[in-house]
């Protein structure tokens, strides 16, 4: 009856051993090697940041431990850089968020016009930031720029745009908003359009006031999108370089001296490798924290969407 009885040798055959599957390691090995390859320069930069290293003084190169960091944090100019970077990051992301959300709400309904507008609004995003600052530099030039001309015509004859410390931050944030608001807008628009309709219909039936609907239903449901968009923008805003460098090289004075510009100037102009690296390490620590947040958020979101599936 039972074949096991008639094939005793089958029983004595050893059962297969359990072993770790080497395949995933093999598959990711090449990428891993490249990853390590990229980590080597990273750790080299860490090492530089612990050295007194100016290329113009090759004989004076030596290990100073956290000397560069102490110098940085005990100098007012570096704290000024931290403040300027934070202000730039905070202000640009908040304004972009508000504007992006506003536009997304305006375009929420699916209509042909709204779709055309939303695609058209993406165009600034396709413009490289360097080009964007060039466009705006031309448009705000007091001699022939069309914006300068308009603002002048409105009576603000002394509006200095990027060349005055009073308006420089405003100007670069305006450009940043022009470049990056569409990014937030498109994310939030997608979010808004994917929200389930029932809560809104129910609220409508119950006659709930619009403001209540917005703050108690729309906004909370949109939060994952807002958080993702915000983290993404924070990560790139704290590292702003192209727009500011293109417009003012960090000036006038030190008014726009953000992290990356300070370290760029320290490296390429002052050949001060040690200090430039230390500045970058401080910036890296900030971005690392932000990207950790971002990845956690991303995983949570995927888990949620999977659990729901």
């Amino acid at each position: 009856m039972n074949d096991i009885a008639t094939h005793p040798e089958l029983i004595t055959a050893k059962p297969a051993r359990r072993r770790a599957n080497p395949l995933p390691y093999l598959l990711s090995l090449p990428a891993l090697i490249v990853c390590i390859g990229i980590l080597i320069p990273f750790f080299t930069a860490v090492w530089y940041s612990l050295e007194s290293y100016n290329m113009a003084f090759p004989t004076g190169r030596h290990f100073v431990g956290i000397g560069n960091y102490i110098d940085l944090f005990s100098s007012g100019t570096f704290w000024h850089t931290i403040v300027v970077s934070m202000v730039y990051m905070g202000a640009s992301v908040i304004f972009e968020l508000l504007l992006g959300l506003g536009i997304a709400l305006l375009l929420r309904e699916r209509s042909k016009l709204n779709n055309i507008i939303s695609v058209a609004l993406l165009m600034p995003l396709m413009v490289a930031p360097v080009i964007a600052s060039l466009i705006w530099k031309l448009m705000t030039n007091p001699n022939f720029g069309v914006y300068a001309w308009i603002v002048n015509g409105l009576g603000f004859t002394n509006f200095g745009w990027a060349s005055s410390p009073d308006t420089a931050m405003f100007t670069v944030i305006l450009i940043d908003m022009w470049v990056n608001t569409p990014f937030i807008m498109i994310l939030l628009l997608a979010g808004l359009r994917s929200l389930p309709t029932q809560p809104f219909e129910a609220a409508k039936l119950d006659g709930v006031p619009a403001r209540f609907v917005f703050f108690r239903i729309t906004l909370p449901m949109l939060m994952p999108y807002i958080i993702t968009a915000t983290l993404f923008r924070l990560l790139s805003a704290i590292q702003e370089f192209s727009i500011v460098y293109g417009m003012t090289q960090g000036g006038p004075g030190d008014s726009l001296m953000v992290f990356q510009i300070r370290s760029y100037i320290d490296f390429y102009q002052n050949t001060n490798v040690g200090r430039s690296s230390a500045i970058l390490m401080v910036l890296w620590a900030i971005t690392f924290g932000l990207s950790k947040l971002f990845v956690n958020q991303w995983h949570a979101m995927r888990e949620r969407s999977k659990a729901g599936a």
Partner: protein
Amino acid sequence: MILKSLRGVALLLVVLFFMFPIFWIVVMSLQTNAEILSLPPKLIFPPTLMNYTALITGHLKTSVGTLNIAFMHNLWNSFLLSALSVIVALVLGVPAAYAFARYKFRLGEDMAFTLLSLKFAPPLLVLLPLSLEFQRVGLDNTYIGLIWIYQLITLPLILWIVRGYFEDASPDIEYAYRVDGHSWLKGFLKIAIPLARPGIAAAVVLSIIPTLAIALYAQRWLVEGLSLGAVKG
């Protein structure tokens, strides 16, 4: 009624703010230098294609002299470079993305995060030591060296986007193929990769046009993942 016209005005302002600079740069591109520099700005002018001819032929005549701009050459060069580095990133990244999506294993998550966090980190951080040490490893001014650096941008992108697509595809489809009698490799090539093709295509487009990256990155993939979460969760 008032609300509607308010909405219209707001939309008009938004469109103006975002579209005007683009419109204006197109207008300026059709003007001669003297016209660009005139005030008040000229809206009516005989359009010239001079600036475009200059781009393509590489000769722009200015008061300081003839500018030889190797625009076309540079364009081709950077295209070639991005194309090559994307190919390399695909060869490296797609199998790794598959491994992360299909298997839970040590290193996988760490590596994915390390790459991502380095991508988000200031680019100078990696470029600075590389520019100083490249000569020592003999990679300066070589395509290999540049392609390697480009992996910093392209590899994380491919890893994270393609991984999402692999995760979304049911492993049963590959299992079915293997049960049919095909090897793992064949299943990977004929089933897994074609199924992740939209993701791979998106990642390729995004890495070739880095500025486009963030935009489409958000649209195609993040939004897709997120809207899944919102709809189903």
